[in-house]
């Protein structure tokens, strides 16, 4: 394992590494969080603690998975709400965690239904020894409309509750955003105005993951019925990255510290969130599927990436990609790239020909005798769909040509994404 300092300061608190459990079933009690710390997680966001008057009553079963071919978890649906233990038990767990793991970061997630709740909960978790607080404005499966994502989609409420928390704690705190909204910037800005020190994004996406074709009901089935609830896992990563990028490029949020959440499974996913401006990372679905041990390869992989990038402080990677995501109207539209086919790698399946004909511009042609494709550049528009569907990575970006009437520019040598080559 490569020894590398992965520590990073987020909202004024130094984390041994940026990887945290997110507030969810994976951080539901002392033993779970202790095991996570022992396995190497930098911090935990303890499962959301609610007010005393809000009683948790869960359904069974409560999860379902979206699959594709032989892939068991593309996306994941969760109907579980916030912590089901009593307020006293949760606070006792927080105290014990801080006592036994003083060097790891302990984040308390809280959720109230009114200002008094928020004030009270913030005060209690502060007294219990949490290092920071996360305000859960975003759980989409609460049985109360005064709580969860209905709050997160209402900037005024976000601001009001942040202000309430600010009044009763000196700890840094972040507001956890819901993606069930067109523009996340509004509630995020409102939260900062209310006194939040940072933003966590994203919580789960409202979903119906599968419908049972015989019983005609969504999954999971609870006594013949189902409900809309949160969707997570690898499939939501692109949505999370988009919201984070939009916040990081909003003038009012560009300096906001963000904890990134949404489909992180590998160090590569983690690095993507960091490059788009996250200083902290939270994980649930991958842990539910594979266990806490996944952090070992996340940390090692991230350290090796830092080594390759020649970076000694993780901080130096934060936000490096933000400037390279620009509005569509500003992209260079003067040239096109033709595919180049590596005939040694090509196995002659013809998938590029099928996709080019049925999904693009009928440019990839097929030699029936040799069973190999070739590109007819008079028809090719350079979309490179062929490269994406090739199962052996035999198609890459080749010759770049200027469109008719465009002036030549000094373009850097163009290479397709790494993911092309890795296949």
């Amino acid at each position: 394992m490569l020894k590398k300092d992965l520590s990073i300061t987020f909202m004024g608190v130094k984390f041994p590494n940026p990887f945290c459990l997110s507030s969810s079933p994976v951080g539901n009690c002392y033993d779970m969080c202790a095991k996570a710390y022992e396995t190497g997680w930098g911090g935990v966001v303890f499962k959301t603690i609610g007010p005393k008057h809000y009683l948790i009553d869960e359904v069974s079963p409560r999860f379902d998975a979206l699959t594709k071919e032989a892939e068991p978890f593309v996306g994941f649906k969760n109907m579980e709400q916030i912590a089901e233990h009593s307020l006293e038990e949760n606070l006792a767990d927080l105290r014990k965690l801080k006592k036994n793991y003083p060097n790891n970061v302990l984040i308390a997630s809280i959720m109230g239904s009114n200002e008094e709740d928020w004030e009270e909960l913030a005060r209690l978790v502060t007294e219990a020894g949490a290092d920071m607080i996360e305000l859960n404005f975003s759980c989409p499966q609460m049985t109360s409309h005064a709580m969860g994502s209905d709050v997160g989609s209402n900037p005024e409420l976000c601001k009001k509750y942040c202000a309430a928390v600010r009044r009763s704690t000196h700890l840094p705190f972040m507001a956890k955003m819901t993606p069930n909204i067109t523009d996340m910037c509004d509630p995020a800005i409102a939260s900062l105005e209310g006194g939040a020190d940072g933003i966590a994004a994203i919580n789960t996406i409202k979903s119906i993951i599968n419908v049972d074709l015989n019983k005609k009901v969504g999954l999971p089935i609870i006594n013949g019925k189902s409900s809309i609830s949160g969707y997570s896992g690898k499939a939501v990563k692109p949505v999370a990255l988009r919201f984070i990028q939009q916040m990081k490029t909003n003038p009012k949020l560009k300096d906001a510290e963000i904890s990134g959440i949404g489909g992180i499974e590998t160090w590569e996913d983690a690095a993507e969130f960091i490059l788009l401006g996250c200083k902290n990372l939270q994980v649930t679905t991958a842990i539910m599927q594979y266990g806490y041990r996944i952090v070992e390869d996340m940390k090692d992989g991230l350290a090796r990436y830092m080594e390759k990038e020649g970076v000694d402080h993780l901080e130096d990677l934060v936000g490096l990609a933000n400037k390279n995501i620009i509005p569509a109207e500003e992209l260079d539209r003067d040239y096109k790239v033709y595919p180049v086919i590596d005939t040694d790698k090509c196995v002659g399946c013809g998938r590029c020909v099928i996709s080019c004909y049925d999904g693009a511009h009928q440019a990839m042609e097929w030699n029936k005798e040799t069973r190999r494709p070739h590109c007819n550049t008079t028809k090719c528009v350079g979309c490179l769909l062929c490269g994406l569907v090739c199962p052996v990575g035999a198609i890459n970006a080749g010759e770049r040509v200027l469109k008719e009437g465009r002036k030549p520019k000094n373009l850097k040598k163009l290479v397709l994404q790494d993911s092309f080559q890795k296949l």
Partner: protein
Amino acid sequence: MVEDYLKEDKGFSPRDVMEEASRCLLCLDAPCSANCPAGTDPGKFIRSVRFKNVEGAAETVRENNILAGICARVCPTEKYCELACSRTGIDKPINISMIQRYITDYESCTHMSVLKKAKANGKKVAVIGAGPAGLTAAGNLALRGFEVTVYEKESKAGGYLRYGIPEYRLPNKVVDEEVKRIEDLGVKFVFNTKVETSKLLDELKKSNDAVILALGFSKGKMLEMFEDNKKVKLAVDFLKQVKEKKGRVRVPESAVVVGGGDVAMDVSLTLKKLGCANVTDCAYEQFCEFRASKKELEHTREAGVTILDGYIPEKVTKSGQVTFAHRVIKSKVVIKAPLIVLAIGQVSDFSNLGIKLEDLNDPSYRIKNTNVFYAGDIAPGDKTVVYSVKTGKEVTKAVMSYLKMEVK
């Protein structure tokens, strides 16, 4: 022991089959399909599985290959569809036979009936032999409205499928099911009836619009030195006996098998499974030119059968001591065993019908100037089940064009 002989290997689970179907590159021109003699069309049925349409896959498989459940188990796919698989360019071919087996098992478990009885077209055909070619021809003719009667010398249908291929590789339950599908199409079977004289054949020619000979290569070959030796058995007879008795056959402590094809592998492995501790197989071919399919060779070796490649028998004593000599190198091997099984090939057995094998090589599958057709092992081409399915399908079309019917 007997249980080992009776037990078939486990098939794919729904997850396994999806994993395997996901490996398929879904080629533009599906070279696997082009390389299936029976036209079973793996390219299409694997795609159906991949897109979660197993019932559609079952329809494709069954419509194209009326013995699909049998072929899934016994076809040497490495020589046909899997040989052409593009995935080989990455790692190894798709396990097409196991996907096909999953599909036909699904069809069987869910009691699907893909093929429907047709309206009678008023024509009559007699099929002689209820092996793979005869069954395929009978089924395909019935699907087109023919009144078909199959004459079979044994008491049940299936031929070598039922009486040859060991139970662990092809359970008779599967043969029963496939035969039942063909019966359900209206095909009549007349068992224990050997059409062995030209007079009987002439009667069938007169009372039918066409007669199809699907006699197979049912007689085991003998070598002169082994004739009348009490220690010697022919592979076909040995396999038939074991299968009929459901494996309840006494085997000696050691045995010698002569031959290097799939039948020799079947005999060797059957002996081993039934408890024969020392099985030695001597094959004429060397491994580089072996005839048995890789799969069967592998299973046989894994079971601990000793295979000596390149050895031919020179002499044998009455007490069962055989001397083998290597074809290339200077080497002799002497083995004494209470049982010697010859698996050196099979031949046809219809000389008294007034027909010679040489007459049977016309692409029209018809004996000149007669209404007699032929299919299966006695027709030119590979001697495999899948090839019998192919010729069984093709002879159907040949009969129809002979009767000036529209061939669809």
